[in-house]
């Protein structure tokens, strides 16, 4: 349980500031530091077996089906990183307390910092690859929030987004790579994977896996060509930089290289990819670091360069080089954290980070100057400091490698060149800041030494640099040994940590680097002048520009598809339909089936021709709206004739009555819509639409023809047989509607009801201006309510209602039923509206039809529910015979009640729609008169 406690303590600490921020920053820092100290203590205890070559593991199942378990391990490598993360983290906590501006209570800062610490600890201690990715992404997220800490500063936001995008991309690649490793190895357990190096490297997917994992590592560790985000992450507060860019965030990528070293390293591909990236990064960072005028910028590029150095070491495929890499991880973390903190002090004391203004600080803050100078000297690789030792090993290793064959000399050359620039920029950091004349126009003057305790973290780090540099064997040797052993996966090569190895080539390279570096710095003026002439490249702007370009491109693509044009959208849908038809229907052997067709008669042909003519006329004349409506109603009429002809009287009745109401609706619509309708479509679009229309029309017709001439067994005989015995009605269509498939009808009347509601909602407070005149300039009506119509319509009402009752009652046995009856009633009532006006009607019947609709559907629904009382499912019907005078013998079925519901809904919905639509014109009239 010690391992999870070590990882979770920072998470616990991250929550504390939420409750303690009102106590002020001092308490915050203290409360946050305590768990970190505790974690360090636990780590010390947990590390006991590791010094003896052992390992600590802990695991708990979480997602076994995905192979994601909460598994932790503490081996040498993890221990080393834990020490760095917790140790430097603790120093940063202390340092930040003094660094943050007075008005910042530190709550948010410490929460984010500790969250980040937690994520990092998770990365380095995970014993499960997916768990590692889990934490890996958490570091990306928490570092995003840390970098954007000064959220109202545009540079901070952009820098944070850039870091998130680049490292996020790497994280996704890593996820893919890890999943592939799991696929190859058959387990996500790190312990298993570490033993499966050969298996992975022999697998066909190895190159893919390698590239994906390296993408993850390189983006995180800012390796060329993904290095550009790092300098812009400097927009973060300096304690964050000191933490993220020395010991943690960027080292996560290096950690990944070390962790996967036994699995992925050792191949030529590894050598070429990793060495090349490392060398390019080493040189690129070193050269540009020299030219940075920003104090933190210099440190940022130097970080890039040192990360390249470590990567290069891991790429060399030699165990000794890997040891050197691990050693440099430690050394870089110590001196770089110290340097960032010193830079922060200088920034705080002078109010600027511009080295062209910060000069001669030796006079004002000699103590800080000494600390910074020692740390920079370590960075430059000056003897007796830790940087010298690992650099020496680095030079040795580049000399040893022969993997480039005849070109092997390139490696030591590059290394020396990197060394030269590294010395040069270190020299600049020392000379430019602390000497080189007087300060120029500092925002804060004179600078002073910082508070006593702010220097303590720096002192500790610098002391470590010296101690390691002078007495490597008694300070760092043990930790390095266990870490390197874990990295290499077992056997440690022989090496000596000593300051003096005798006169040899690496020493010569160090001397060249020192002398050359000073020389380069000496000609800095000429170099700066050259740099100033270079076109200024702001990676942030370039990156933002790229992103903007991608966004523009994306917007272009989206606009191209997402045109906002209904015609376009509909054309896509219909084109897909046409494609389906064109793709499948030509496979048909024949467009007719085996059944003989019915004979054709003259009247049918005539009607068909009329229908076709009317349909085509509707299409041609669609801009002459009145004509189009007339043609359309002809079509509707003939369709109902088709139903009559082919033994479907119910359909014919329904079609006819719906037709009446629809035409009424269309007329009303026409009244309000603009009369003018110009041709909008160019011939290309007309052609496209015509092709689509013909293709779909033909396809549907062919399918219809084939089905009509084919005999198949259907479920309908059941309905014919059971209609009377089971449903109590002879009109099978009606029995289906109210009984066999009454649930459909229930849904259908609900749809009708909802449509009415929706329409009511649409019409409420709608204001429309209608033309008082038709397109030909004639007034729509001279007399709103012609007397003839009024006189005729009133006696029609009871008559129509009678018919409706008749149609309704006979519906179960003969064509008719609730729906048709409802429509007839509505039409009769609507006629009153048309003839006498809304006002007249509403004086006589209540105008709100909402309850009627509800009652109708409710009645239908309650009829269904009633069957529960008889322990039967919803809508189970029952019936009995009744004799009524005049109408005759008929069955009274519970389905009748259901049909009454249908009737009420239809009346309610139709009137709700049309009466409210009619009211529109009323509003219009009122407006006209007032």
């Amino acid at each position, binding site marked *: 349980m010690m391992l999870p406690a070590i990882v979770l303590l920072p998470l616990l600490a991250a929550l504390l500031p939420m409750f303690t921020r009102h106590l002020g920053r001092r308490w915050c820092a203290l409360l946050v530091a305590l768990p970190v100290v505790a974690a360090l203590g636990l780590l010390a205890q947990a590390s006991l077996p590791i010094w003896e070559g052992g390992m600590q593991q802990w695991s708990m199942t979480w997602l076994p089906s995905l192979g994601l378990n909460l598994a932790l391990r503490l081996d040498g490598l993890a221990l080393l990183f834990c020490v760095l993360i917790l140790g430097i983290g603790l120093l940063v906590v202390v340092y930040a307390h003094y660094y943050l501006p007075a008005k910042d209570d530190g709550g948010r800062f410490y929460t984010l910092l500790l969250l980040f610490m937690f994520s990092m600890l998770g990365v380095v201690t995970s014993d499960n690859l997916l768990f590692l990715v889990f934490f890996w992404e958490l570091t990306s997220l928490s570092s995003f929030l840390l970098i954007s800490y000064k959220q109202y500063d545009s540079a901070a936001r952009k820098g944070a987004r850039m870091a998130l995008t680049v490292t996020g991309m790497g994280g996704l690649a890593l996820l893919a790579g890890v999943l592939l490793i799991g696929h190859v190895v058959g387990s996500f357990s790190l312990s298993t994977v570490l033993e499966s190096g050969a298996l992975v490297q022999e697998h066909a997917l190895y190159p893919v896996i390698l590239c994906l994992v390296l993408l993850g590592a390189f983006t995180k560790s800012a390796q060329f060509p993904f290095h550009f985000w790092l300098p812009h992450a400097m927009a973060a507060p300096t304690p964050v930089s000191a933490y993220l860019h020395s010991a943690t965030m960027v080292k996560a990528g290096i950690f990944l290289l070390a962790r996967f070293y036994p699995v992925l390293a050792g191949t030529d591909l590894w050598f070429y990819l990793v060495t090349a990236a490392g060398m390019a990064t080493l040189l690129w960072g070193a050269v540009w670091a020299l030219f940075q005028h920003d104090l933190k910028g210099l440190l940022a590029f130097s970080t890039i360069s040192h990360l390249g150095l470590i990567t290069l070491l891991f790429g060399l495929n030699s165990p000794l080089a890997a040891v050197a890499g691990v050693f440099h991880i430690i050394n870089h973390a110590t001196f770089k954290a110290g340097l960032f903190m010193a830079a922060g002090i200088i920034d705080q004391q002078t109010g600027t980070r511009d080295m062209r203004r910060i000069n001669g600080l030796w006079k004002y803050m000699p103590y800080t100057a000494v600390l910074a100078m020692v740390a920079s000297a370590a960075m430059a690789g000056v003897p007796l400091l830790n940087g010298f030792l690992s650099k020496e090993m680095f030079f040795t290793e580049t000399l040893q490698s022969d993997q480039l064959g005849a070109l092997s000399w390139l490696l030591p050359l590059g290394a020396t060149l990197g060394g030269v620039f590294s010395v040069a920029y270190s020299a600049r950091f020392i000379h430019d800041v602390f000497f080189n004349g007087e300060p120029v126009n500092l925002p804060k003057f004179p600078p002073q030494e910082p508070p006593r305790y702010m220097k303590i973290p720096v002192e500790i780090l610098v002391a470590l640099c010296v101690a390691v540099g002078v007495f490597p064997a008694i300070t760092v040797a043990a930790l390095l040994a266990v870490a390197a052993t874990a990295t290499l996966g077992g056997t440690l090569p022989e090496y000596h940590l000593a300051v003096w190895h005798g006169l040899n080539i690496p020493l010569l390279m160090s001397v060249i680097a020192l002398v050359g570096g000073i020389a380069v710095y000496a000609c800095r003026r000429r170099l700066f002048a050259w740099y100033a002439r270079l076109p200024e490249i702001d990676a942030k702007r370039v990156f933002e520009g790229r992103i903007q370009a991608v966004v523009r491109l994306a917007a272009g693509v989206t606009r191209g598809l997402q045109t*906002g044009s209904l015609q376009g959208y509909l054309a896509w849908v219909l084109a897909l339909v046409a494609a389906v038809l064109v793709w499948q229907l030509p496979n048909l052997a024949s467009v007719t089936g085996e059944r003989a067709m019915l004979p054709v008669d003259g009247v049918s042909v005539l009607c068909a021709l009329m229908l076709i003519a009317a*349909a085509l006329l509707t299409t041609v004349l*669609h*801009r002459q709206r009145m004509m189009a409506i007339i043609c359309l109603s002809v079509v509707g009429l003939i369709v109902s004739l088709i139903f009559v002809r082919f033994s479907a009287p119910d359909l014919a009745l329904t079609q006819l009555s719906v037709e009446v109401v629809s035409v009424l609706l269309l007329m009303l619509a026409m009244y309000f819509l603009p009369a003018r309708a110009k041709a909008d479509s160019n011939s290309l679009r007309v052609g496209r639409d015509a092709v689509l229309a013909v293709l779909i029309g033909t396809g549907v017709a062919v399918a219809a023809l084939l089905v009509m001439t084919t005999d198949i067994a259907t479920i309908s005989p059941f309905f014919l047989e059971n209609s009377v015995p089971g449903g109590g009605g002879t009109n099978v269509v009606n029995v289906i509607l109210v009984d066999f498939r009454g649930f459909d009808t229930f849904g259908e009347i609900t749809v009708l009801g909802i449509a009415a509601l929706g329409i009511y909602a649409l019409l409420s407070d709608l204001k429309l201006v209608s033309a008082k005149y038709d397109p030909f300039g004639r007034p729509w009506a001279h007399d709103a309510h012609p007397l003839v119509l009024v006189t005729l319509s009133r006696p029609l009402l009871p008559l129509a209602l009678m018919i409706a009752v008749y149609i309704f009652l006979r519906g179960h046995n003969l064509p008719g039923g609730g729906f048709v009856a409802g429509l007839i009633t509505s039409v009769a009532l609507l006629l009153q509206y048309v003839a006498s006006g809304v006002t007249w009607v509403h004086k006589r019947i209540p105008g709100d039809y909402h309850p009627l609709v509800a009652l109708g559907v409710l009645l239908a629904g309650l009829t269904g529910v009633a069957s529960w009382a008889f322990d039967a499912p919803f809508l189970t019907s029952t019936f009995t015979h009744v004799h009524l005078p005049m109408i005759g013998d008929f069955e009274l079925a519970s389905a009748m009640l259901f049909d009454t519901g249908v009737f009420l809904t239809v009346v309610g919905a139709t009137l709700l729609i049309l009466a409210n639509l009619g009211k529109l014109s009323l509003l219009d009239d009122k407006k006209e008169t007032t």
Partner: protein
Amino acid sequence: MELLVALIIGVLVATGVYLCLRARTFSVVLGLTLLGYGVNVFLFSMGGLKINQVAVVGASADPTDPLTQALVLTAIVIGFAMTAFLVVLALRSQGEQHSDHVDGQDGEQRS
């Protein structure tokens, strides 16, 4: 006769599709209505065509398929509800966007 009905279906669907693709709400309403007719006749025809064989028990020897009729009836009602909604929505669109173009003012400017 089947051929004739198939032809009718084809023409109704084709004209319906064409009108749906026009730019004015009124034309689209017309198109959807025609398409609705076509689809209803199509659905109806799926049960096969029979003359003088009403699906009333006892009225005919070889009654026509009642199920497709019931389906078409449901489809007609739903189609009516939908058309009504669309018509009113077209009015609303006219009222709010002052255009009867299906894309409102944007479409007006484009055309």
